[in-house]
């Protein structure tokens, strides 16, 4: 019998004899990974959405009066002096009115009683995509408010702030769930291995008397840990995928989720998660075996 065959046989025997405990551990690992991966998925999607929103951001500077063309050129130059500005667009009262009318479509008749000059002229400033920081956007808004004739600068400040706060909260949740994942895995897996060692103490004692090497005794427990890590995290990710598919199919489209284009976790990240869980579980079992067998 080769060493690998002997170790696999031992591992199979272990799993067979303690299958109930193994199943409970597997379920715990699956749920821990599912919970963590779920928050990670939301966080990554929120980050992506935030990135898209920042990419599409524009600051509208409302003006008292329309600017003469020569003044427009000077103002544009001043705006560009701030740097990080992609494009500057001057909107006259008429253009603003026509744009609103186009947005209203069939309901444009509500504008009939209003004059074409009821909307203020404005400057639309599009920052560069490199400006992804909310603080930098706020700085630009402050700068634009100092322009001559500017009455108000609008860029959805509160919304962006709330979104930023929500993303930060999600980040904390992801970190906390990651810590919980590590703790639950270490605790549950080492506890399972302790139970297995305890259940097999007599057999391990006999194996030692028969001259079994430390590797012969330890490796099956290490394999058990690896098995728990790989299958638990794999099944956890698979469960998350089906949950994701169900949510996107059921709630996708023009509703709330239509605002975002949801993406599943990238494959390399899933691989990393599974590898990390496998290492964590194998490490926990090794520590448990060393501690309880003193070998």
């Amino acid at each position, binding site marked *: 019998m080769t060493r690998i065959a002997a170790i696999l*046989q031992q591992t199979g025997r272990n799993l067979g004899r303690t299958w109930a405990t193994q199943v409970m551990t597997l379920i715990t690992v699956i749920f821990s990974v599912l919970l963590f991966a779920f928050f990670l998925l939301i966080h990554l999607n929120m980050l992506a959405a935030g990135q898209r929103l920042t990419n599409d951001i524009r600051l509208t500077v409302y003006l008292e009066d329309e600017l003469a063309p020569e003044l427009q050129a000077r103002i544009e130059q001043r705006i560009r002096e701030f740097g990080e500005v992609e494009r500057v667009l001057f909107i006259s009262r008429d253009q603003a009115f026509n744009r609103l009318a186009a947005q209203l479509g069939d309901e444009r008749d509500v504008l009939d009683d209003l004059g074409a000059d009821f909307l203020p002229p404005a400057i639309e400033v599009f920052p560069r995509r490199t400006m992804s920081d909310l603080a930098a956007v706020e700085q630009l808004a402050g700068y634009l408010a100092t322009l001559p004739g500017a009455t108000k600068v609008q860029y959805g400040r509160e919304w962006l702030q709330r979104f930023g706060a929500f993303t930060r909260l999600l980040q904390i949740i992801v970190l906390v769930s990651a810590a919980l994942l590590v703790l639950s895995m270490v605790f549950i897996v080492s506890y399972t291995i302790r139970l297995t060692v305890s259940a097999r103490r007599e057999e391990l004692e*006999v194996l*030692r008397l028969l*001259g*079994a090497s430390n590797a012969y005794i330890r490796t099956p427990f290490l394999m058990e840990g690896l098995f728990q890590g790989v299958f638990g995290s794999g099944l956890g990710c698979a469960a998350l995928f089906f949950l994701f598919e169900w949510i996107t199919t059921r709630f996708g489209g023009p509703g709330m989720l239509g605002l975002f284009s949801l993406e599943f976790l990238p494959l390399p990240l899933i691989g990393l998660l599974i590898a990390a869980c496998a290492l964590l579980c194998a490490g926990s079992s090794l520590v448990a075996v060393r501690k309880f067998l003193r070998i």
Partner: protein
Amino acid sequence: MSDTPPSSALVECIRLSKIYPPDVTALKDISLAVQPGEIVYLTGHSGAGKTTMLKMICNLETPSKGMVVVAGRDLSRLRAGEMQRLRQKIGVAYQDFRLLPRLTAFQNVAMPLEVAYQKRRLIRQRVRELLEGLGIADKSDQKVENLSRGEQQRVALARAAANSPSLLLADEPTGNLDEGAAGLVVELFKNLAAAGSAVIVATHDASLYRHSDHRVLKLAQGELSELTANTAQAQAFREETV
């Protein structure tokens, strides 16, 4: 590195003493050498120190004084890995069997062979051969917990002999056996000895050594003495009549 002089003996006990706390002397200044291919019977009353001596020879107990040398290696100086390798060459049939009750007779006997990474075919062949030799081939697939004490004892002996060890230690190997089964056990010892193994048997059973031409040693009050053929027979007679 061992500083013991080279010797042809497989087992050497040199001035061995064992004192249990507070001051119970189990063995006193005992020296013994056992050659490969030799069968040695160790007799004595209960509590004479037979089991203690066997345990020291397989390093389950450490001597209070003196040293045990097995296959040229001082056991007190062996590292864990070396001891593990040496244990694969020492078969021990314990008085309390130390079998795994929920495994079958076959699985129990196969364990030392699996530990030594033997091929499956060889394991099947060797286990079958041993179980047949000890008259329990029909119990091969039965769980040990369902076997009688005598059958369990034979499974324990088969396991001890499975790896064709250089040294076999048997503690009261026929305590639960009838005369016929005991004969099979003696046959097993003879076969092992013929193949070059040293066999040390701790026993009360006078029928084992009564007509034996092998060495018979007696432990009494912690001291070891060698019995001649006549004294061995006289001792056997006494043991049988007690």
